[in-house]
């Protein structure tokens, strides 16, 4: 398994696509205080596929939302590239998400009134740009969507819908893509397909993906897994496999 994933190691010294420094997120106060993130410092390297794992309530989704500019930290910093997100207002964050970040959610990824191709180009059109046509074509071809472009989401299978979501995330050539349980609602065959496409996006298109998941099989597609518990990074693993991840999870008693 390790040998098939050796390609990234041969690349040039990787830069940091996103990172956090002492990031904390606290909900409530006093008695009811919950520390969802408790001083997390972590780097996400460019052109890598990173998985974030942890039990429910470990803070993995909160971490993703805060680095992606969907939520704000109580203290500490989150960076996309060199940009400190805490210094941005809502409008600037929106523009940042639109132009430099891609998203894949667990469900409800697509606007139901727009066709597949319109969903793919949505962020570009929101920015008033047409984007790199050749790039978009190659993304669509890679995702196997060429014959589904004029369909509305309701006419697509769950797997196809998630592939449209991946294509949309890729369409703007974002600095980084965040995926939140992207296969949570899919059967195992469609899951495998979508994950393979994401892997392909990193390997062949040089994209950067950070994915939250609780599925060891999904984590097995990543270059690196970060384990969270109680809002802290408790472990990490390079070149994971499904078995290795399962093993590690047993250790944490999940």
């Amino acid at each position, binding site marked *: 398994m390790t040998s098939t994933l050796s390609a990234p190691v041969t690349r040039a010294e990787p830069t940091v696509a996103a990172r956090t420094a002492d990031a904390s997120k606290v909900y409530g106060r006093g008695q009811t205080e919950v520390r969802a993130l408790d001083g997390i410092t972590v780097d996400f390297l460019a052109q890598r596929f990173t998985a974030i794992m942890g039990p429910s309530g470990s803070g993995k989704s909160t971490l993703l939302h805060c680095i992606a500019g969907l939520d704000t930290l109580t203290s500490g910093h989150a960076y996309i590239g060199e940009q400190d997100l805490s210094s941005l207002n809502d409008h600037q964050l929106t523009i940042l*998400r*639109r132009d430099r970040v891609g998203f894949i*959610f667990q469900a409800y*990824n697509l606007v*139901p*009134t*727009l066709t597949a191709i319109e969903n793919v180009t*949505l962020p570009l059109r929101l920015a008033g740009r047409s984007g790199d046509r050749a790039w978009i074509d190659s993304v669509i071809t890679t995702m196997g969507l060429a014959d589904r472009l004029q369909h509305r989401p309701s006419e697509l299978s769950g797997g196809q819908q998630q592939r449209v979501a991946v294509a*949309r995330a890729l369409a703007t050539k974002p600095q980084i893509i965040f995926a939140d349980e992207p296969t949570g609602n899919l059967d195992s065959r469609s899951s495998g397909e979508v994950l393979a496409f994401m892997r392909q996006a990193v390997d062949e298109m040089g994209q950067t993906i950070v994915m939250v998941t609780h599925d060891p099989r999904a984590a097995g597609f990543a270059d690196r897994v970060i384990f969270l518990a109680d809002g802290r990074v408790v472990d990490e693993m390079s070149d994971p496999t499904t078995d290795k991840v399962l093993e590690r999870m047993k250790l944490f008693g999940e």
Partner: protein
Amino acid sequence: MFSTTLKSLLAHKFRMLATAMAVTLGVAFMAGTLVLTDTMRQTFDNLFADVYKGTDVVVRAHAAFEAPQGGGAQRGRVDAALIPRIRAVPGVSVAEGGIFGYARLVGKNGKALGNPTNGAPVLGTAWSDTPALNPFNLVQGSPPRTDNEVVIDKKSAGDGHLAVGDTTTVLVLGPPQRVRVVGIAKFGNADSPGGATTVIFTRAAAQRLVAEPGKFDTIDVVAAPGVSQTELARRIASVLPDGTEALTGKAITAESQSAIRKALSFFNTFLLIFAVIALLVGGFMMFNTFAITVAQRTRENGLLRALGASRRQILGSVLIEAFLVGLIASLVGIAAGVGVAIGLKNLLSAVGVEIPAQGVVVRPGTEVIALAMGIVVTMAAAVSPARKAAKVPPIAAMQLGMAGSTGYGSKQRVLVGSVVLAAGVGALLWGLFGDVSQPVRLVGAGALLVFFGVSILGRTVALPLSRLIGAPLPRLRGITGEIARENAMRNPKRTAASASALMIGVGLVGFITIFVSSAKASIDDSISSGFTGDIVLDTGGGVGGGVDPALAERVAKLPEVAAAAGLRQGVAQIGGSGTFLQAGDPATLFSIMRIDPRAGSVDDLDANSLAVYDQTARDKHWTIGSQVPAVFAKTGPRTLRVALIYSDNTQAGNYLLSRSGYEANFAGQFDSRVLIKKAPGVSTAAALAAVRTVSRDYPGVELLDKAQYTHNQTAPFDQLLALIYALLGLAIVIALLGIANTLALSITERTREVGLLRAVGMTRSQLRSAIRWESVIIALQGTVLGLVIGVFFGWSLVAAMHDQGITVFRIPLLSLLVVVLIAALAGMVAAVPPSRRAARLDVLRAVVSD
């Protein structure tokens, strides 16, 4: 079950508030109208009771005939010689003559006061020194003692900036009179008798200037102590000649009160129509809200069914919710009604309709009517959604789908809608063109059915219409425009229901705009073709008022003038029905007013004959030489010979008398207008200047060229238009509330979608813009449907009124374009609250999976 309903109601405060507001506004309008009319009725009742409290018997002539358009009984005057005879009746303490006639007061600025053509009358009357018989109370100064002294009412003193000691002019019979204001009086405790401008002369001067010498309109009697009104009236009646009658003070009070009630009931109905329209629009909004919320609660209702609630209980819970919303909204509406009554009074006064109303009269009956209407409309609107809710199967609790059907309407629906629409169009046209006893009701019902029919068909046309209206948006607004259009198209049922509410208001605005515009164009047309002169002296005196005929004679003598003819107006009964007529000197009038004689001869038109419009003559089966029965207030029954039949009635109307015929049969000789044709080779400016040298001796008479005259004739329509716009405004505001409410509810459904859009980079302003444009599409849809209906209504009424002189059908494109723009703008405004709420939505709430 009841507590579940209550909790669900409290859980959706915003929804309830916005929905209830629609009903509240409608109920408030209705309650306000009722309060205002109750107040006016009470004011008049008190006024007449007060005015006649010292009068025991009134003697007057029998009614000769009823004037057209509810103008009331017309009667002649009684002989002054009756007074000594009445005084001799045992039990009579005082008997004296009362006088009413045309007298138009000129204000300090030289402009005549009052508006006798379209408003309250202008009256001249006599001062009575018998306190029991004098309805006026001096608030300043003293009674008139000489021929050139007058007392004026307090309202006119204010409007004309006249004070005790001022000298001014009064237009009366004969030359304008210079008079000195020696006193200012109230009528009972009102500033003026029902808004009328009143000039009070000495009895002798009044007889000479506003009535007839030796005649009185009434003889008012005070009884000696111990003699009852009934007994005295009986005694007096026994000495009266034929054609006169004696009424008790009680009877005349009741008669005056009931006449006013009749007049007020027209007014009441007029305002109530708009209140009902507002409630109806509120009902549409209510229906839409219930339909949406029932759909959103499908799972909740399924769960209740699964837990053992019966269909009947679910149905009941929705209806109870509707009842509570209706009850609360109506209660608030009734409370607001008092404020609305005051607002309506101010609105009417702003467009020139002065309402005498003192204090606020709130009757329990009024409250009950308004309350019941509010609750009934709300519950009626909830019936169909409630039935839909009751049909939810228990399994719906376990299913994911929500938000009900988004259907375009079944075949049956299209069929039902088409039938209703066809029935409406049929009823409307039948009412307008058919021979029906209650045309107004039929036309009203037809109009209502047309609105219902179109709104039933609404969801079927909503999709193509939204696509069409939104077509330019993607190009104009890019992806936000596209999203707006798609959102307006995604639930045609809902879009159609929101649009329907606006459609009603806009339909009526479009209709009235087209009708008024056509009426104005017709008048314009009629003046330019029927009036062949160049200048008009307009007194605004209306029927039975105006200026001394000497003015026309003096103008005719000017070298700059080729011809001048005074035009007199009056009411009479001709061929069995009360009607308006005009009169003038045949020798000059027909050189300035085109009538296109068809049969008979102008020269035959003498004191004992009349000229009739072609169509009228045909309807009545009259030909030249026919003997036509007529009744005049002054001369009673007469027979007139048809001497002339003419085919252009645009300026002449349906009946014309010769000047001699008018002089023979009418008491007051006034020219309501003087039509003038300038001499050949004289410029209009020169002719105007020449006429001015004469007309300036007649203050209050307006000197107008043809264009100004046309404008003067059409101006009242603009006033009417403004009033109706203002009254329809409420229905439109309610419809806009409906659009805002629908959008807010739709956005609640779309929370996750909104979050997704925001997550992938839609800015708040782009989101607001998308919602704004969606709202504009809905608003324009209602506007387009409304205007189509409005054009149809306008066309049918104009066509139906062709015989009444509305000969031109005109669609004022510019005005209608303004309506469209305002609707689009209003759609944007309606979208402000929901779009702000949407923009504030937490992005995370949307994207985090539950």
